[in-house]
């Protein structure tokens, strides 16, 4: 479903990704971990064509996201790490979730009954139906995350890219969002790429962990293979100290 072949990317002379190759299959639930600056967010943005790699090839649904950006993006959901809704913009929860349908609909066509049904179903599934008329900018962090998830669900996407969506949430909200992502993965049979730093709180169902370090694939493990020894090498931290911090890590 996503084929990345020897992709490299630089910003102002600094190499962010270096000959990264990954093959993500349909219904994979992949966690991407790694130190800050390892290239995790850049990799997600390359997958949906928001960033153009310097070298290498990328194919999503057998399309090139550089040449077919709009077509690819309409089938990929993306929740960014810093997309909290500002109070400045007067949009209700329903308005924000409807944004997901706008790209699907295309230019010069108004959203119709079917679109609003998708919006209602998505809000219902995420559990924010009772918030639909509330100003989105005034919601709590956890509620705003649910709004973003509903927005992507309303689009009927096939791939979901989630970039550190647990950041700035309290433990209860982190648990709730993780459970929601697992539920969505199982129910909609999506392909999910989940970037995170919170190694203790990986959602249930993740079947692969890809670690990036210095813009390269450091390791690519399935299921239970990844342990705290690998983590200590990944983060260049003593294993015992790391265990104190993230627990006895094992998927």
């Amino acid at each position: 479903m996503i084929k990345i072949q020897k992709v490299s990317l630089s910003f102002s002379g600094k190499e962010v990704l270096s000959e990264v190759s990954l093959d993500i299959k349909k219904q994979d639930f992949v966690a991407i971990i790694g130190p800050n600056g390892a290239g995790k967010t850049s990799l997600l943005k390359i997958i949906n064509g928001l960033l153009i790699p310097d070298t290498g090839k990328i194919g999503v649904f057998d399309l090139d996201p550089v040449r077919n950006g709009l077509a690819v993006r309409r089938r990929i959901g993306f929740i960014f790490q810093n997309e909290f809704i500002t109070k400045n913009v007067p949009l209700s929860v329903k308005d924000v979730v409807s944004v997901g349908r706008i790209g699907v609909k295309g230019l010069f066509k108004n959203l119709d009954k079917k679109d609003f049904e998708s919006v209602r179903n998505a809000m219902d599934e995420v559990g924010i139906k009772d918030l639909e008329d509330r100003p989105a900018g005034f919601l709590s962090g956890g509620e705003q995350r649910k709004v973003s998830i509903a927005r992507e669900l309303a689009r009927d996407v096939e791939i979901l890219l989630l970039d550190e969506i647990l950041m700035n949430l309290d433990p209860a909200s982190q648990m709730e969002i993780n459970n929601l992502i697992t539920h969505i993965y199982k129910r909609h049979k999506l392909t999910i790429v989940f970037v995170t730093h919170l190694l203790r709180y990986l959602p249930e169902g993740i079947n692969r962990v890809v670690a990036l370090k210095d813009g390269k694939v450091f390791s690519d493990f399935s299921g239970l293979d990844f342990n705290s020894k690998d983590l200590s090498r990944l983060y260049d931290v003593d294993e015992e100290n790391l265990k104190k911090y993230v627990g006895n890590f094992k998927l």
Partner: protein
Amino acid sequence: MWEILSYNYFQNALMGSILAGVGLGIVGVWVVLLRIPFVGVAISHAAFAGSVIGLLFGVDPVLMAIVFSLLASILIGPIAEKSGLEANVIIGIIFSLVLGVAFLGLGLITGPKTEAFNLIWGSILTLSRINIYLNAGITFLVILFLLFFGKEIKAVFYNREVAASCGIPEKFIFFSLLFLSGFVICLNLNTIGGILIFSLLINPPSAARILTHSLSKMYMLSILFGIVACLSGLFFSYVFSVPAGATIIIVSSLIFIITLASRGRNGS
């Protein structure tokens, strides 16, 4: 008092006021929600620089004002995109550049400079029919753009990056919003003046935002406040024989103050 309505210049002023209220009311919502309020100052000074250059080289100053301000509004988006800097920073750079060009030109002009300064102060009572037609044309264009791309504009207000990731042509929408805002500001300089236009661009949508959490209501209230400010400013200016532009701005500021005062302690 009503005989004033039979005068051509006053009819033009009335129509100019309504068009300014509608046009600036809509693009005001755009610049407030995109958080680029200083675009008004930059565009009006680009027009000023254009008219100075026109006077210097013997070209029609009004035409040059339009060319300069459109050029400025076209350039903001792509330069921000290319440099990776905020649109506000580019607005600041363009503002300082056009101010430099204007002052250089003023220093070199030996003859009268009144025509250039007219754009800074504005003169609603001297609007010509051509001004009215041009303002009506751009206001119509802005309304059409809003009707055709309203849902995409909403997505861009929400979050440009999310809009792009949802498959919405956000760059086209964002650049068009900047360009149309510049166009409306430029054509309304005769009505309200380059310095004073800032207030009419910001006060009505800001007052509207205080009163509503709905985008469509914000547009309607902003247009209403814009028209009320222009018409009542014009009325007071006639009754008390004071400058129209300044009166319009004071009324629009009063509207903002009154809505602010009506707001509850926690913003309710």
